[in-house]
């Protein structure tokens, strides 16, 4: 029992440190204006996703724990393809948030990351893939953490989180671009680049809330029911 708990804690420490290290690393890159940041940041973003995947593989998940994540990712991917004609309007964040709330932070992370990877096989892979995986994974992870801390008692908190998550997604994606490809980096140049993307990110935020409003309570209720009906509770997830 004890070793079990310890390994869960170790996994948790690893996850949290990865989630924090990537932004810190990016800020350091920006601050010191390190050269060849494009390569460095791409490598770090790929590495940032590894602990979650390895942890998941190591936990030897049962099919019953794998399949809900697969289904939610498939729904999110299908949704992203369905809404592909309208740029920056995609239901992915909303679905990832609901998954994080219902199935916990790690499921949220995996759903977000796998949706990014799988949907980019349709929409086009690129150096942005690991960043999108990280960004959507983080959105799902934080949703799971906040739900487990009971912060989502009121629905409007989730809507606010959904709105912020869209901006967070934009912040991560824009920062990647700015740190990798803008030099020399000044407040002015960074601000101009963020400003160029602001309205797109706003559109994403609003779309996320618009998708969250109708699905949040019915989907959470259904998923919780399915979870208790089939006994899908994973300890530590």
């Amino acid at each position, binding site marked *: 029992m004890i070793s079990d708990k310890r390994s869960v804690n170790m996994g948790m420490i690893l996850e949290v440190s990865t989630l924090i290290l990537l932004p810190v690393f990016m800020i350091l890159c920006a601050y010191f204006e390190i050269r*060849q940041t494009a390569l460095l940041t791409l490598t770090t973003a790929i590495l940032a996703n590894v602990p979650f995947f390895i942890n998941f593989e190591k936990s030897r998940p049962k099919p019953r724990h794998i*399949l809900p994540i*697969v289904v939610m990712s*498939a729904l999110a991917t299908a949704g992203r393809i369905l809404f592909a004609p309208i740029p920056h309007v995609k239901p992915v964040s909303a679905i990832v948030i609901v998954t994080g709330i219902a199935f916990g932070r790690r499921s949220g992370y995996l759903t977000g990351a*796998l949706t990014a990877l799988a949907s980019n096989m349709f929409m086009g892979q690129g*150096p942005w893939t690991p960043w999108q995986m990280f960004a959507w994974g983080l959105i799902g992870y934080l949703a799971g953490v906040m739900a487990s801390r009971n912060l989502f008692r009121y629905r409007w908190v989730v809507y606010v989180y959904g709105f912020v998550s869209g901006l967070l997604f934009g912040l991560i994606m824009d920062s990647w671009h700015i740190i990798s*490809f803008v*030099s020399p980096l000044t407040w002015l140049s960074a601000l101009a680049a963020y400003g160029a993307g602001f309205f797109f990110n706003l559109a994403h935020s609003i779309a996320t809330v618009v998708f969250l409003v109708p699905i949040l309570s019915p989907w959470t209720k259904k998923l919780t029911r399915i979870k208790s009906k089939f006994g899908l509770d994973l300890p530590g997830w």
Partner: protein
Amino acid sequence: MTMIVFIGGIQSSKATSSNDESQDKGALVLALKRYHPAVVFLYFAAMLLVTMLVHHPVIAGISFLFAVLLRCRVIGVAKAMRSLLYLLPMLLMITCINALVNESGMTALFTIGGRSFTLEALLYGLVSGLTLLSVIIWFSSYSDLMENGRFLAMLGRRLPVISMMISMIFRYIPDTVRHGREIEMSQRALLGSDDGHRKTKVARAIRLASILMAWSMENAIETADSMRAKGYQSGCRKPYARVRWTERDVMPFLLTLILTGLAVIGVLSGGAAFLFYPEWYIPSRAFVGGRLYVFFGVFIVLSGLPLLLDIGEKIRDVLSLGRRRASREIDPFVAAMLPDQDLDGQGMLFSGDGSEKRRRMES
């Protein structure tokens, strides 16, 4: 098979047309595509590494040029140009933003309201933009040559669960779409066709999505149980992909390694140094004269490797014309289960057309 058909459907123009073309003219299949996935992966990883490692106008230009050439070879000139047309505004934007917000540099082009716009900032932005574009184009060629099936086969060794999950996501998307249609039809039968109001339409869409989610979830649980019943995780099952390393893979693999090694050594020793600010100049540690040309030569050969290999294969084809080409060792049964695009290579793989493959499978 549904999954394969559906993937083909979504990537419609890309997958089906390339398939059609290659059935018409088998010669269109790129040599690189017939090598072991590890070779393809190594090559593109190396290309991305070298492209992003250097910030040099000539290198960026070479990388961009060959990325575009390879793209033309992979998807055809017309399509490659069309995709380039979408990318060019991006290049323009990156160049302009850098020039507008960046006041470093000595050579002022023009001054507006006390702010000067410099040639150096413009050049820097252009090189950044070219690098980004090259990376994107290399990536898209990579995803055309390394189809999802091959990617998953490579991933399957290290991350078996994750790669299985990705292939299951693909398998679930067509199911989801089909279920969605079924739900829509039964809803219409129950409630009658909608009255055309926006409100009812939205309400029905929400309802549909909700039903769809619950249905998929319950189905998935059934799948999970049947997976367990069939011995998933019993320890005697392993991911399987029959891609074999053959002597043909050795040469491109070694070439990529050696050329990349040379290029990286050249870069790390400062040979490709190029300073943009305050005035662009080449520092003394950089290569000059003959060594510089050798360095550029290495880079050109590396960038053009897929095309060179392609030409080499063609020459070999012409020389061995009439002789039956040794078939590549892929089990025809496995080959038939690989994603659609993989079948492009069939004409070459089995030195015959699709019908021969089918006959083989039936026998």
